[in-house]
């Protein structure tokens, strides 16, 4: 058995709101290995995004432990996390968060430049190959606002994968995609998982969930593993 690549121990997160303390995560334990492909489902507002933010070290828990690889992200100061995160975690945000003033391909080169990944002269070609893989290479020179929602989402995915990160986090990564594109993305994630990456996504899409090996449900601040097995054939 390989050791866990991502794990959380008794993760607690609550917020102070005008109406009192809001308990979002009430003690989450999570363990995933390299090569695991997991989905987290649950009702809206349950805290899925919050949980992802803990793992990506975008947010800090109120209490508990989060470890990714050999890094305890809770105990590492933010500035030190910046470059590490860029190299190790690819994030697909719920609302894409593309940089609007640069082209699609430049958006994908961006993290490579700042993480210092790949040889500089190869970065652009590498970005283009990802675009091709996602079927949007003809949009390469356009700015994000000229693309449809689906195309923007695929750009965001390509960007998340540009640095070949060992951990891939996707918040509703296929929400805006049609069936075909969604399947394509799913296949890419599966492929990356097969190659050793750890993939965690949240999703509403039941069709997709059906094909994901590991599924957690987040409800009322607690995490429940509802499936853990090999990929099932539809």
């Amino acid at each position: 058995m390989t050791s866990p690549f991502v794990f959380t121990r008794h993760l607690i997160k609550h917020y102070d709101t005008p109406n009192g303390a809001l308990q979002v995560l009430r003690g989450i334990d999570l363990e995933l290995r390299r090569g695991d492909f997991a989905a987290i489902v649950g009702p809206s507002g349950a805290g899925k995004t919050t949980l992802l933010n803990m793992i990506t070290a975008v947010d800090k828990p109120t209490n508990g432990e989060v470890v990714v690889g050999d890094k305890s992200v809770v105990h590492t100061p933010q500035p030190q996390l910046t470059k590490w995160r860029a190299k190790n975690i690819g994030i697909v945000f719920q609302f894409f968060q593309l940089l609007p003033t640069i082209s699609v391909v430049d958006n994908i080169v961006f993290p490579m430049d700042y993480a210092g990944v790949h040889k500089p002269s190869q970065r652009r070609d590498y970005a283009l190959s990802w675009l091709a893989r996602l079927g949007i290479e003809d949009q390469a020179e356009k700015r994000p606002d000229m693309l449809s929602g689906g195309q923007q989402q695929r750009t965001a995915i390509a960007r998340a994968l540009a640095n070949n990160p060992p951990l891939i986090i996707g918040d509703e990564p296929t929400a805006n995609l049609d069936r075909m594109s969604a399947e394509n993305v799913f296949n890419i994630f599966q492929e990356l998982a097969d190659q050793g990456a750890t993939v965690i996504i949240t999703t509403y899409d039941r069709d997709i969930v059906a094909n994901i090996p590991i599924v957690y449900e987040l409800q009322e601040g607690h995490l429940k593993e509802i499936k853990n097995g090999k990929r099932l054939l539809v």
Partner: protein
Amino acid sequence: MDTVISLQAVHKTYKIRSGLIHALHGVDFEVQQGEFVALVGPSGSGKSTLINMITGIDRPTRGEVYVAGQRLTQMGEDKVAGWRGKNVGVVFQFFQLLPSLTVMENVLMPMSYAGTYKGQRQERAMELLDMVDLAEVADKYPSQVSGGQQQRAAIARALANDPPLIVGDEPTGNLDSVSAGLMFALFEELVAQGKTMVMVTHDKDLAGKVPRVQEVRDGLLLQASEVDQRLKATHQA
């Protein structure tokens, strides 16, 4: 019963740099007075666009739109806005209250713009806020109240001019399940009082509680029979 909404062969095409986006491919849609309709469909299916046609917020590239007796396609932007203020109560998921006005002042807005209920506005606003259980926070600014309260205030505002038609785009999207339930009960109440309600949602559970569900996919309306089958399928899964 009167036909409150009538869309006839409505096309909507957006021109962007990389080409054309066809949001609606020739939609025919009719809603009678007193109906409660849910429009469901995945993201990008065109349901939001369709709703925007109904409220006059957007215009079709081709086709005709008749709402509450008005032919919206012939009216200028300002006139549509004026008509909308009196005839349609709009509730959006993200378009909530104006932060620079108090809750009460927000509810006054439609009356102020339309010039209705002169001399009685404050009174009516308080009544509406009372109806949604917000009377105590009338004088507070939106930043001082919770998300659920803001959404309820938005509904009070939508009802300010007693419009015959209420349109919501994911009106419960940002609420927790309890508040969402209360909201929905209010909608049912309004329909029972004779208002017409059209609601967009991607939440299939919610849609299931609405008397009439219309599925939208890829810019077209699916036939009712298809809808029933899919609904049955999900409930069993």
